[in-house]
């Protein structure tokens, strides 16, 4: 099957008519549709699903109500109609499906599915197919059972991890769908049919046996077992219904809690920011205090720097004057000593007289010293004035207030910027968590715990009832065999029929097991080949499939890898999808929504190289975080047949445009 064209009208975020043509080239078989989160990638996938099968699914595979399928903007404008036209080819035939819903004319404001009228039309090679044959025809070409593997939501990849958990409820559901895609139900239905026929045959046999005195006892036992079986099955149905209700409640709470996990994280972040803000505010307060303290004496720092040169000048002047005073004193002292020696020329120690010829040089020296002394002029009061000035100017001391004020100011500015950043982040987070009730989150957690406990009890009861049903069946079979082999029953038509159905049921049961084993082997082989192409770890030897179609990674020593990264999970899940797609009854195009979300660049590269080989047509719905439109595309540019972009018009409206 090859997709040709999709025309969307008023579907979810797509208001008005929007058309997408799929690549038809044999090697340029990849179509890329880029779109940010919340813009409408999953809605695009759902548009295709709804076009084919008339249902669109949300999380946990819940069907989206019709009222939510019609574009809100169009509905506000009074247009309550929505339609999808899908053109595709299969085995040389051209198909065109037109599916449309419209508000019933008597309904003013639709509230439920029944308020809409659905119409569907199918043309094969231009010829209209009659209404009752349409769904059957579509399912022959594109069976809904396999839609999960070609209309594939990558965000559901995680669900495939549940396949590894034996007896997990979700794993059972997925297993059921896998088997539907692989064709196992044909045999299961056959076995169930024979099981019903056997039940009827046993009843008739019991009725016949009632007429025989020898077998009357067996007939009575068989009746009792039949009544018991009916009762067990009724109980089982009740319990399964109860479990379904609880599962839905748990899923709903899980969805809500998943959203609130982000709220919890944001609350913690808010508390951290609040502490950071408080610390910044305290620092700002302390710095402002310090600034004021410094401002009080900053004038002294300014004067100190201003007056320092002058102070030095005054000090030098004072020192010079003091030096003159000292010189004058020394000269006076010398003059006094010399004058004394002239006035009394006898030596005080040796009592000898200074010779007359030596007196004149002393007189000359005194004259020279006097001349020098007369040149050393100073005013002692000037020194006093200078000293007084020095004392007053020395009061001007600097504590480096200016430098510290500048430093503090710079720190303050940084802190102010940081505070603004913190406050705006706080505002953003407050806005994001506005309207969330944290008490409700706790209540919902408790409710979930209680529901899970109920679910466990129900599972145990269901298992017990199933075991009782099996036991009952075996007992019924045993009694039926006893009747068949008894003299009274032997050769009886009803006994022959019972034996025949018992054998046929056993044949089909064996067939189911063999088919499952064979299919699992096929899936494992294809998935292992895909895994080898996708993984970057060469020490892995392959994948091993379990009874649930879950895949384990096997290392070179044949051991199962216990811990797997999120990226490895995604690679394994993609390998499984490829394996299933190749094993399925019908291969089709692959439309994948967000397939590369958790992959590192190397794995992403491998996946991008491998995806074009997975099917004749591959449609990837991606955001730019998954595939860089410039870098990643180079690796498989030759395989791209078409590129589209989802453009945001508003929160409730998007448009698909072709890009180069």
């Amino acid at each position, binding site marked *: 099957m090859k997709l040709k064209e999709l025309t969307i009208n008023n579907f979810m975020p797509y208001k008005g008519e929007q058309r997408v043509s799929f690549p038809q080239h044999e090697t340029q078989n990849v179509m890329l549709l880029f779109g940010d989160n919340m813009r409408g990638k999953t809605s695009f996938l759902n548009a295709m699903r709804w076009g084919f099968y008339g249902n669109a699914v949300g999380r946990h595979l819940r069907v989206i109500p019709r009222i939510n399928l019609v574009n809100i903007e169009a509905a506000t404008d009074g247009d309550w109609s929505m339609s999808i036209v899908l053109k595709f080819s299969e085995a040389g035939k051209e198909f065109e499906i037109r599916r449309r819903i419209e508000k019933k004319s008597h309904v003013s404001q639709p509230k439920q599915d029944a308020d809409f009228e659905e119409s569907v039309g199918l043309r094969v090679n231009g010829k209209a197919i009659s209404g009752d044959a349409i769904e059957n025809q579509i399912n022959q070409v594109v069976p809904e059972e396999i839609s999960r593997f070609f209309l594939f939501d990558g965000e559901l990849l995680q669900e495939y991890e549940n396949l590894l958990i034996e007896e997990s409820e979700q794993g059972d559901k997925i297993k059921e769908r896998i088997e539907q895609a692989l064709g196992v139900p044909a045999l299961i239905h056959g076995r169930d049919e024979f099981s019903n026929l056997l039940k009827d045959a046993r009843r008739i046999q019991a009725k016949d046996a009632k007429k025989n005195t020898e077998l009357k006892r067996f007939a009575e036992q068989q009746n009792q077992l039949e009544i018991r079986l009916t009762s067990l099955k009724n109980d089982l149905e009740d319990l399964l219904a109860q479990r379904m209700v609880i599962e839905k409640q748990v899923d709903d709470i899980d969805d809500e809690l998943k959203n609130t996990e982000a709220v919890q994280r944001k609350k913690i972040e808010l508390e951290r920011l609040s502490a950071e803000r408080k610390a910044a505010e305290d620092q700002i*307060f302390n710095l*402002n*205090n310090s600034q*004021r*303290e410094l*401002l*009080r004496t*900053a*004038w*002294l*720092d*300014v*004067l100190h*720097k*201003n*007056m320092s040169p*002058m102070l030095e000048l005054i000090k030098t002047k004072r020192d010079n004057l003091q030096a003159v005073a000292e010189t004058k004193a020394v000269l006076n002292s010398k003059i006094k000593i010399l004058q004394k020696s002239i006035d009394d020329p006898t030596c005080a120690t040796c009592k000898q007289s200074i010779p007359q010829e030596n007196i004149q040089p002393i007189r000359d020296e005194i004259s020279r010293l006097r001349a020098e002394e007369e040149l050393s002029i100073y005013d002692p009061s000037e020194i006093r004035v200078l000293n007084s*000035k020095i004392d*007053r*100017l020395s*009061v*001007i001391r600097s504590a480096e*207030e*200016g*430098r510290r*004020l*500048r430093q503090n*100011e710079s720190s303050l500015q940084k802190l102010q910027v940081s505070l603004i950043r913190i406050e705006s982040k706080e505002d953003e987070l407050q806005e994001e968590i506005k309207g969330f009730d944290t008490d409700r989150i706790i209540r919902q957690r408790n409710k979930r715990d209680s529901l899970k406990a109920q679910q466990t009890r129900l599972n145990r009861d269901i298992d017990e009832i199933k075991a009782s049903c099996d036991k009952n069946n075996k007992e019924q079979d045993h009694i039926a065999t006893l009747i068949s082999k008894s003299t009274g029953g032997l050769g009886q038509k009803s006994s022959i029929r019972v034996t025949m159905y018992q054998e046929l049921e056993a044949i089909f049961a064996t067939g189911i097991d063999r088919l499952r084993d064979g299919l699992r082997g096929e899936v494992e082989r294809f998935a292992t080949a895909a895994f080898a192409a996708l993984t970057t770890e060469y020490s892995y030897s392959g994948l091993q499939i379990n009874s649930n179609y879950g895949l384990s990674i096997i290392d070179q020593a044949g051991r199962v890898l216990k811990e797997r990264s999120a990226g490895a999970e995604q690679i394994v899940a993609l390998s499984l999808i490829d394996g299933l797609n190749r094993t399925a009854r019908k291969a089709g195009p692959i439309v994948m929504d967000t397939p590369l979300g958790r992959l590192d660049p190397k794995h992403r590269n491998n996946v991008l190289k491998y995806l074009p080989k997975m099917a004749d047509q591959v449609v990837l719905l991606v955001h730019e975080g998954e595939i860089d439109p410039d870098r990643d595309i180079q690796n498989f540019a030759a395989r791209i047949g078409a590129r589209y972009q989802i453009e945001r018009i508003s929160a409730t409206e998007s448009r698909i445009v072709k890009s180069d």
Partner: protein
Amino acid sequence: MDEPTRIGLTAEAGAQLEDLLDELNPNKGIEGIKLIKFDLYRLAVALGLKKSEVAPPLAGNSTSSLRVSELDPDGVLYLAAEQSEVLPADAPVYGFIERLAEAGVREFYAFYQTTGQLPFDQYFDE
């Protein structure tokens, strides 16, 4: 030359000084170090002396609200102003100081009004 015993600012600059103190000091009821008029007045004079520019006479009457003995108890401002090269020959030193304060406070106020802060980088450049 007779020196005044009280000096101050014009009414306008006085109001600006009050506004500045309101802006720079913590809000009412909040603990913390507080500035008083003398602090900014002395800083304005010191910065005026540093600039060594002739300060214009006061545009109006001075409020004479500050006692010189309290503003300049050690005569440090007087001494520094006395050494200034731009000290007018026929004016009292404290009159000169008053002019410097008036010009300085007006400048503080103008800066604060424009930028929300005082230009410490400019005032205290190395």
